[in-house]
């Protein structure tokens, strides 16, 4: 039984890892949306950056785009934290059923933080691509 559970967990982990963009955009000096393991990110000049790494790179060209990326990174980090807490609540719900309610609330909060992270990533991309100074 333990073997099946481990195999199922392994399959889920492998499946989660394969949720990522495969095509590498090649238009120079333009930001494009990407995703690795569910985390939003950007491609710039053929290099993928997770949203948590993007602010440092974008700051050299567009301060407002960097600020959006910074916000996206903070929100994504927050979503990951809420996701872990909600996972604990769901697991403990089997022992204390009212915790299922807390788990549902925290899952909704996680989802909202993840959405905010995507919205901020999109803003960062659009600000950067609209800034004539960044097109070089």
């Amino acid at each position, binding site marked *: 039984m333990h073997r099946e559970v481990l195999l199922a967990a392994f399959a*889920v982990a492998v*499946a989660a890892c*394969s*949720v*990522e*963009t*495969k*095509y590498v*955009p*090649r*238009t120079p000096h*333009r930001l*494009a*949306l*990407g*995703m690795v393991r*569910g985390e939003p990110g950007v*491609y710039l000049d053929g290099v993928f950056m997770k949203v948590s790494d993007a602010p440092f790179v974008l700051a050299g060209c567009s301060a407002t785009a960097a600020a*959006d990326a910074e916000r996206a990174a903070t929100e994504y980090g927050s979503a990951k934290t809420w996701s872990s807490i909600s996972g604990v609540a769901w697991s403990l719900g089997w022992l204390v059923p009212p915790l299922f309610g807390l788990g549902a609330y925290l899952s*909704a*909060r996680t989802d*909202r933080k993840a*959405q*905010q992270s*995507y*919205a*901020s990533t*999109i*803003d960062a*991309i*659009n*600000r950067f*691509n*609209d800034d*004539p100074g960044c097109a070089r």
Partner: protein
Amino acid sequence: MRWLALMAALAGCATVGSSFRRTHADRNELVWAYHGGLLVTRGGQVVAAQDTWDGLPVAVSCVPRARDQAETAQSRKRRGKVLVWSGIGLMVAAAVAGSVLIYKDRHNLDDIGLGLLTLTGGLSGGLTMTLTGSFMRSRADVTAIDAVNMFNDDRATCTGGT
């Protein structure tokens, strides 16, 4: 109305959206937006949305490999949705049928055994379907992102709009 919006925001129900609108995009470029989900826009008009990706194959039709990716995304999204809802339906049906069998006659061990089998089989089958469907929907989203990136890279080869 303002109070309703404030209450929705406090409850965490207000729609999350991107705020910046491009002003220097060329007329053929596909631009991302976000409003409760990813949106693909062209010239300020939404051409496809994350909930179905319908419209994306047409929007990228002049770049064949982008169109193929967009069609794959659309199809994965549909199949994912069917699997998720079928899985949920199977779990609910198994919970109801299993409970009826278990509680109908609490002295009949055959019915109780069959009820437990129905319950566990239906729940695990339904959960597997739901997880597979969710995974398929996520794959659809990254495939759609690839399609948009391919199109934007190669859109210079398009003549006469899309």
